[in-house]
């Protein structure tokens, strides 16, 4: 069994799975259940400043997007930070940490964008012996209207400023949680780094309305006939999260900055993908909210199994392995030529590849009267749409042509040399090859 022990910012946890700051980590009761189930760490539900806590709506807080069998694909929430008094949360955190010293316990914090507010809360958090803090600059709903959460995360200067305060008044690791509701995630990440952040975590949830009730015309979730945008999460957001993580991992300004990956982690495979794109660990929420804490058994066993198969003995060996392969479009090899190939033995003759190619793509699949579908190499640009719509796994594959073969589409021989857009003759900005 591969060792899943993770050392993230010097914080050790028995596996790389932390529960993200969210409803599952709002109370001692839940967190104890999570640790008993085997979770590596938790980021406690976001704490607010001392005083009367925030209040939540008293109607639905969540909306969902489903697959056909009500498989939950995306979840949206309009819940705020913890609505329990600060001191209650701090006492519980201290108790839990004392009882589970081998697990990571991180305090998520969101207080007004004033130095005094941060200076006031940080020593109180430190007293709990929490392993670090996460600055919630991500929540896109409710708190952002009050100048917190995503309202901070959308202004790199604020991120840098607050991070700097935190590094000044707190001596354990500081993680900055980023909002995806921005145009270029590298800017807030760089700001966090400049402010002295030990790591960033991302993504927080995405602005969303899950649906509209077509009888009442209220957005969902609906509170007395009105709706407000919520934060979207769950399996549906994973591709967005992976891309943002990869941008930070490969950008010059932020390369090497530790990342805690968040966004739709549902199975071990998702976790492995986040880690390969540079994350030192992952945070999970929606999957736990959907299936309960027991999924940790699959998450840990699956990752361990895969690592054993591949011969990796520690998480460190996986971190960032995919990062060198993330590049700009302009550096993709334009001399790489593939053709779709349909395995006739596996084909079930549904014709989806044909409809997709004929109606919406390159007319590169033929259909015979007895429903035999074949690729027309002269037309195929290897777009992969047929593969994507085929209901049979591996029935259609993209087969690379070998160097020297004649591409029937262009009539030209496949060039063995790598060549990209930067040197392509059609590019007016092309540099002469050296």
């Amino acid at each position, binding site marked *: 069994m591969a060792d899943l022990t993770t050392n993230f910012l010097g914080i050790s946890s028995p596996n790389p799975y932390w529960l993200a700051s969210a409803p599952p980590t709002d109370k001692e009761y839940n967190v104890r259940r999570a640790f008993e189930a085997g979770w590596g760490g938790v980021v406690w539900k976001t704490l607010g400043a001392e005083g009367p806590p925030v209040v939540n709506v008293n109607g639905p807080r969540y909306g969902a997007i489903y*697959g*056909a*069998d*009500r498989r939950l694909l995306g979840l949206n929430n309009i819940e705020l930070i913890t609505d329990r008094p600060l001191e209650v949360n701090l006492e519980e955190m201290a108790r839990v940490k004392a009882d589970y010293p081998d697990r990571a316990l991180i305090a998520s914090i969101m207080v007004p964008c004033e130095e005094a507010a941060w200076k006031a809360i940080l020593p109180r958090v430190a007293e709990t012996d929490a392993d670090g803090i996460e600055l919630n600059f991500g929540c896109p709903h409710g708190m952002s209207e009050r100048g917190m959460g995503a309202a901070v995360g959308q202004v790199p200067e604020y991120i840098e400023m607050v991070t700097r305060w935190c590094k000044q008044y707190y001596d354990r690791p500081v993680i900055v949680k980023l909002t995806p509701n921005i145009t270029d995630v590298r800017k807030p990440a760089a700001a966090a780094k400049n402010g002295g952040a030990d790591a960033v975590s991302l993504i927080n949830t995405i602005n969303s309305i899950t649906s509209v009730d077509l009888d009442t015309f209220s957005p969902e979730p609906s509170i007395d006939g009105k709706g407000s945008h919520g934060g979207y999460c769950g399996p549906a957001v994973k591709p967005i999260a992976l891309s943002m993580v990869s941008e930070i991992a490969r950008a010059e300004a932020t390369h090497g900055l530790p990342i805690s990956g968040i966004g739709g982690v549902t199975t071990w495979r998702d976790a492995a993908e986040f880690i390969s794109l540079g994350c030192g660990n992952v945070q999970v929420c929606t999957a736990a909210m959907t299936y309960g804490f027991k999924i940790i058994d699959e998450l840990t066993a699956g990752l361990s199994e895969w690592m054993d198969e591949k011969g990796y003995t520690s998480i460190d060996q996986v971190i960032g392995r995919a990062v060198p392969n993330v590049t700009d479009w302009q550096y993709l090899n334009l001399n790489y030529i593939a053709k779709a190939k349909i395995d006739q033995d596996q084909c*079930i*003759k*549904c*014709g*989806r590849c*044909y*409809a997709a190619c004929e109606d919406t793509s390159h007319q590169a699949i033929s*259909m015979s009267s007895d*429903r035999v579908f074949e690729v027309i190499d002269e037309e195929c640009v290897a777009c992969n749409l047929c593969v994507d719509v085929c*209901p*049979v796994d591996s029935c259609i594959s993209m087969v690379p042509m070998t160097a020297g073969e004649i591409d029937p589409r262009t009539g030209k021989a496949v060039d063995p040399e790598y060549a990209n857009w930067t040197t392509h003759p059609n590019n007016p900005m092309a540099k002469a090859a050296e």
Partner: protein
Amino acid sequence: MAQGQMAPGIVSGRLSSDELTSNFTDLHPPLAPHEAAVAADRCYFCYDAPCVTACPTDIDIPLFIRQIQAGQPRAAGQTIFEQNILGGMCARVCPTETLCEEACVREAAEGKPVEIGRLQRFATDDVMTSGEHPFERAGLTGKTVAVVGAGPAGLACAHRLAMLGHDVVIHETKPKPGGLNEYGIAAYKSTNNFAQAEVDWLLKIGGISIETGSVLGETVSLDGLLEAYDAVFLSIGLAGVNALRAQGAETDGVRHAVDFISDVRQADDLSHLPVGRNVVVIGGGMTAVDAAVKSKLLGAEHVTIAYRRDREAMGASRYEQDLAASHGVRIMCNVQPVAVLGKGAAAEIELEYTASHDGQLSGAGDTVRVPADQVLKAIGQTLEGAPEGLELDGNKIAVSAAGRTSLNGVWAGGDCAAGGDDLTVTAVAEGRDAAMDIHATLSV
């Protein structure tokens, strides 16, 4: 108190009323909305879908399933009814395993087709239970068409003609319309008096009247109809039954399976319907399976289907055969009846093993006796009472693709017409298509 399965002879009340009620509930219970959503999601929306090609009425199956996916079962029902006004019955009785579901690509892929039949029922039930009729008549043409026979072909023809603005008078021999939907189909496939409810719903289009007790060749004649109406559509079914060529074929306890099925369908109280302890059904088609399963459900102790050829040759699909087997019906193949034995009433049947040489079936000499206090003959129906002067094709009325007979102004469809598979769904297609041709002819 129920008599029990072991009571000898042909008696009623073998099972308690509760047992009978439970036995005759829906073979395939309707899908609940969530089940339908899950089942519909399995459809791949194939290009030029093979299921549509396989459907005799060309229902746009991927479209109606997508409409279910999209939360509009009523629109799905409309899609079905546009092609097949008896889509509700077809959803229940079509041998989907040899039609749309056999063609489904998921059948090829995983041996588990999309449940097209049940989805069709889900959609058509939604429309029909709303009570609303989804079609309106076109402007009246002033023409009137006579339809002879109120079975699936006649009803489909009448509905389409009425929709196109013609008036229709249906002449029906039996006291109730519906034809084999009412009198002939397995009760466990069409529960809760669905056949009559479907006819009532269909007639809501308006412009169709039904004259029951109207018998062609007796109370009305083809010439008379041609005189009184602008066109005639014959959908008279197969009223005759083949005779059993065996010694003792007239013994008490021997009867036609179609009559037995009709009795079951028309029974107000199944506990009053007699059935043998040892039932032998002669034949290999769907009627044989229906009669055998019904006997079993009524409480017969032993039920045997005796068929003269091998299993592959049976008219009943493999699915139907398995259905029979799962109800405890024994299927004997390659045997033919030679004698029904018994004093006064049937007690045994003697079957001879058969052999096939170059397609010719003959008795092989060896015989076996099977206890049989009731023998049900399901050896095929024949055309009976067809008007003189109509050209025949084999034993059926010869028709063109559009259902035209050899006589001007006379169309025919359903089981009485040549071609087709003697299925409800083919009858509907033939009735509908003949209506279109009648309409085209009358519109000239």
